[in-house]
């Protein structure tokens, strides 16, 4: 496991971004020459260690592993909430419906066996054979399917294509789709660990979480904790976008200053992707989920973006707001009507026909008014942009535009498949 500088792997399929490890390569170990097949994986990580649920939870707690899908829930707590026995399911969520994020598909494409090791480790601990992996990206799916064929212990693993957009990738929506229902979040609060796939207890987490589970057992908690921040040791995957020194997927130790990742200079920075938070400079923030959450800037699924100086920043925000509106599942009135209204108000703000206060009021009506956190996240994305873009907004208010073109630095392709 050595430090790598530049990605040297061959041509990558569409959708898979170049991936680089800065410092210690763990998730991305061996990926400089491309996809890690089973032989190479075993040479790098050894035969997967097994543990019972009690010992696995203790090991995960020792390193404070947090879920990597966005909610940053303690993985040990989730594991302890699961009953042990055949009824249980393990659900690996690789839906990654956020167009700004590429880390999950990249990990599944480059290091599929690490993800499978983690999923099988959890299944072993829970004494179940029911493992389901949902995957949106076709290249990631092919790589995972090849990995399942390469090994003998993954025959029972079920791979399911899942292309139901952003809200449809929310874990309860995934669980519902796998149970034969629509891929939308349920209206009542349910926990997957109590009522998941087919109504059975389900341990569900993001693909990166499972890869870390495999690493914690392969390395042992002490070795795992030798890099990274004390609050959240180890490494993390990020997707870096826009005007940053190195665009793409990176694996970095936690605890790095954000300025090392996106550059120290001021300018509109997005932390946590399209349900994330805008800040005006990296300041003293460091890459540490608990610390970032305490600072009011949750990392979510690990997307960091810096808007290029040459783009219309307000237009970028409005474009993503429009995408978020298009991703509403349409179940809940406040979201279905509120997000398009918010987008419309943003466009009117950009042409000088609405005030910041009107946008703030629209955004303020969204939180807590949906079956899932989509309206909350969209409101945060828009509301936190307003103070950061104060100067740009003033220019728009005066002139009806800022004179800069919309470069589309924040990808918001409407790529939703028919449900």
């Amino acid at each position, binding site marked *: 496991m050595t430090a790598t500088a530049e990605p040297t792997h061959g041509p990558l399929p569409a959708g898979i971004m170049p991936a680089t490890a800065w410092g210690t390569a763990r998730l991305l170990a061996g990926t400089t020459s491309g996809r890690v097949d089973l032989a190479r994986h075993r040479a790098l990580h050894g035969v997967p260690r097994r543990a019972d649920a009690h010992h696995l939870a203790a090991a995960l707690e020792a390193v404070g592993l947090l879920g990597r899908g966005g909610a940053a829930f303690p993985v040990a707590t989730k594991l302890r909430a699961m009953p042990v026995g055949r009824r249980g399911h393990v659900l690996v969520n690789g839906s990654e419906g956020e167009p700004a994020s590429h880390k999950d598909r990249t990990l599944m494409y480059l290091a599929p066996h690490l993800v499978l090791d983690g999923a099988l480790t959890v299944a072993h601990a829970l004494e179940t054979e029911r493992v389901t992996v949902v995957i949106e990206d076709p290249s990631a799916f092919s790589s995972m399917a090849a990995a399942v064929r390469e090994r003998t212990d993954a025959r029972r693993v079920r791979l399911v294509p899942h292309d139901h957009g952003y809200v449809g*990738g929310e874990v309860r929506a995934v669980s519902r789709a796998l149970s034969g229902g629509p891929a939308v979040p349920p*209206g009542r609060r349910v*926990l997957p660990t109590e009522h998941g796939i087919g109504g059975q207890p389900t341990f569900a987490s*993001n693909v990166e979480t499972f890869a870390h589970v495999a690493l914690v057992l392969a390395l042992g908690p002490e070795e795992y904790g030798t890099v990274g921040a004390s609050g959240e040791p180890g490494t993390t995957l990020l997707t870096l976008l826009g005007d940053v020194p190195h665009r793409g997927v990176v694996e970095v130790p936690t605890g790095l200053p954000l300025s090392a990742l996106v550059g120290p200079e001021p300018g509109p920075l997005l932390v946590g992707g399209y349900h994330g938070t805008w800040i005006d400079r990296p300041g003293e923030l460091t890459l540490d989920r608990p610390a970032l959450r305490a600072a009011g800037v949750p990392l979510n699924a690990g997307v960091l973006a810096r808007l290029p100086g040459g783009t219309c920043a307000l237009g970028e925000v409005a474009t993503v707001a429009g995408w978020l509106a298009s991703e509403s599942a349409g179940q809940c009135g*406040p979201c279905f*009507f509120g997000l398009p209204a918010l987008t419309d108000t943003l466009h009117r703000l950009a042409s000088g026909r609405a005030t910041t206060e009107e946008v703030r009021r629209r955004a303020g*009506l969204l*939180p807590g008014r949906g079956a899932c956190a989509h309206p909350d996240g969209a409101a945060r994305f828009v509301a936190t942009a307003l103070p950061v873009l104060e100067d740009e907004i003033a220019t728009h208010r005066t002139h009806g535009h800022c004179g800069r073109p919309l470069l589309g630095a924040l990808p918001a392709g409407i790529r939703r498949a028919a449900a």
Partner: protein
Amino acid sequence: MSTGTSTGTSTGTSTGMDLQIDWTRCDGHGLCALLLPESIWLDDRGFPVFRRREVPEHLLPHARRAVAACPALALRLERSAPRPAPHPAPSHTAPSHTAPSHTVR
């Protein structure tokens, strides 16, 4: 829109009951806001906005009527999640009530 009779921080005697709504069911009929204006008002599309979720003693009969009147069966009264402190949690006067379980992705 200011129709609230609940002014200041006084929330009345706690009943341990919260208003909950299944947003996937709510069609914005608006009866809840008519029957319980102290707790609920409507946005410009007619969907409810909660001034507060907790139902104090003196509003409990009105809250029950509002729940019973909901044509979509979207509004419910549920026992509040257990709170560590004996005094009521900060009231959700702003329309922000994000349950942690809603954010699991």
